[in-house]
């Protein structure tokens, strides 16, 4: 029983780590209608930007998170405007493939600047807190709270601000939104800034827990993609639900299958979901 509970707790923790970049991924998909695989590089860039702010500049973690958000947001917008934008008319598949190429380029730029070595944030490490047989890490709890706060902010932004409403309008029906006087180009830029920025923050959260290197983002790309598909591509609450479910499923699976197959669990989840409910858990529209 305690094993099961511990696996659930661990699952929620990993789930929230994946959820933040999954929101970014979903937001970009909702508005621009293509899967942006360059988010792996955005997560890495965020992690390195925060590392620079934290270790080189001596800023505390929340400030470093803001730096990561801003830097990655700008990188996301610039990368889109200079490379992916002109491909958008050729269909989602072309842009998706181009985003993989973009990912490689950005990853190697990070490698060029920072080198291949691993780095860690300047943070003390704490032993887990124990509640009976259960153990919970203070650092993970902190990451969990940060992730929840970010998700809440995103939700409020989409729900109550003009930009948020406009974003949802474009996501719902771009033509109708244009008729209503919403400029899709402007919305696209804001969405990219937000989406890439959030992914960058996600990269930092992952890095806080582990170590960072130029492949940090790449390692979680599949999980993020799986979470977004599971929740329904383009749906923000769906991305959160998908990430949590994926995290929990992967950790629970460890109780019955060897750890080597952990990534396989994500694939099986996608397969089942696409077979039985192609729209995903909370998706409104088949992608």
């Amino acid at each position: 029983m305690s094993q099961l509970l511990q696996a659930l707790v661990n699952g929620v923790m990993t789930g929230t780590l994946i959820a933040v970049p999954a929101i970014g991924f979903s937001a970009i998909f909702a508005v621009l209608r293509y899967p942006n695989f360059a988010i792996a590089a955005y997560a890495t860039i965020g992690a390195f930007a925060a590392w620079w702010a934290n270790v080189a500049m001596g800023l505390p973690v929340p400030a470093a998170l803001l730096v990561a958000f801003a830097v990655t947001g700008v990188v996301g917008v610039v990368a889109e405007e200079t490379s992916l934008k002109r491909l958008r008319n050729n269909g989602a598949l072309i842009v998706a493939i181009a985003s993989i190429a973009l990912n490689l380029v950005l990853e190697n730029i990070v490698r060029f600047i920072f080198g291949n070595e691993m780095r860690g944030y300047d943070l003390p490490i704490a032993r887990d807190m124990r509640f009976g047989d259960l153990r919970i890490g203070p650092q993970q709890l902190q990451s969990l709270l940060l992730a929840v706060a970010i998700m809440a902010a995103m939700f409020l932004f989409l729900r109550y601000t003009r930009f948020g409403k406009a974003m949802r309008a474009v996501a719902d029906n771009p033509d109708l939104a244009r008729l209503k006087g919403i400029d899709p180009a402007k919305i696209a830029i804001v969405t990219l800034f937000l989406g890439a920025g959030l992914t960058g923050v996600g990269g930092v959260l992952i890095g806080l827990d582990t170590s960072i290197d130029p492949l940090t983002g790449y390692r979680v790309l599949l999980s993020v993609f799986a979470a977004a598909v599971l929740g329904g591509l383009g749906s923000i609450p769906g991305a959160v639900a998908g990430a949590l479910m994926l995290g929990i499923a992967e950790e629970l699976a460890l109780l019955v299958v060897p750890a080597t197959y952990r990534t396989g669990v994500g694939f099986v989840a996608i397969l089942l979901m696409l077979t039985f409910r192609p729209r995903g858990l909370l998706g409104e529209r088949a992608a």
Partner: protein
Amino acid sequence: MTAFTTDRRTLLAGAAALASLSALPGRALAQGAPIKIGTLTPLTGAGGPYGPVMVKAVKAVVDEVNAAGGVLGRKVELISEDDQTSPEAGVRAARKLIDVDKVSAILGTWSSAVTTAVAPLCWESKTFLATVSGADSITQLPHQGYLIRTQPNTTLQGRKFGEFCIAEKAKRVFFLSPQTPFAKSQFDNITEAVKKAGGETGSLIYDDKKPAYRSEIDEVLRFKPDAIIFGGYTPDTAVMLKDAYRAGYGGLKVAFGYAVNQKLVESVPAEVVDKTFTIAPSPAEGSKAYARLVKMIGVASPDPYTTQVYDQINLILMAIAIAGDSSGTAIKDAVRKVSQAQGGAKVDNALDGLKAIAAKQPVDYDGASGPCDFTETGDIADCQFRYEQVQGGKLTLVKIA
């Protein structure tokens, strides 16, 4: 082909040695057809940094032995070829060495792929092959004894990890590793060593692309290990160490030398990695043979391959001497008589060995790479390993044994 430069001092010493020899009445000078030995090392390609120094070490020994009169009264002639770290180029070069030059032995093949490709040519033509490749499969080839290697395979490495844990009084040993070609053989041999001492082992093979390993560590801790062997590479080992620390693990931590390196030590908080041991194959630093090699080739800290190929040429020249015959088959039959003869004269270089052999003494050679004793299949029975421990944010040498 590479050009070799002989420095003036060696030349003078050689000439002097020759002159003094010729001054001795009644002593036969090196004569008859030369004994041909080939090296097949990577001078280019991935192994390029190693090959040239390896050849230099072999050349130094051959020069020294020739200066002292050669072997069986014959000169030793060295022919060096480049395998380009490529099996295809390696096979071509080996054919040339075997068919055109008719060498009796080939030394120094480096990449396991090259060795695997070249080995059949050698045993079919009864040419002896000494290699520095590590893949377990190499000594399992049907080589009929025509092959030895001085590089420890995974079997030996696994045993060393197991024995180390036992020596540190850990009876419950857990092996944690990503999926690698050597994970299974590593674990099997850790288990063998630990079981022999009455201990227990457990293992977990993980997916090395995950952001956290909390559940994996839970599973490890359920085994209640006294020791965890971290079998991964640097990035995943860093995360594993962190998660083990968080979970309150306070037992023995052991890892590969290539995973827990200075970079890892610097990138995680000090208490996470403190007291972790690392194990890696090592030359016999501090031995007389090692010091001798350093002096001979003028390289401050020669890499393991150079120390190994130095031992290979010493062994082969002595084997030819003790067999009284320079054929590949003679070397095959005689090599263990000079590497590990029971109660043999302890020697650490060919010159001393040749003198002992001339005095009809058996020989037990210990070289610059370690004891150089071989199993029936041609594996090195034991070799020096380097044990280090992270102490206060620095890797500190514990012992070489």
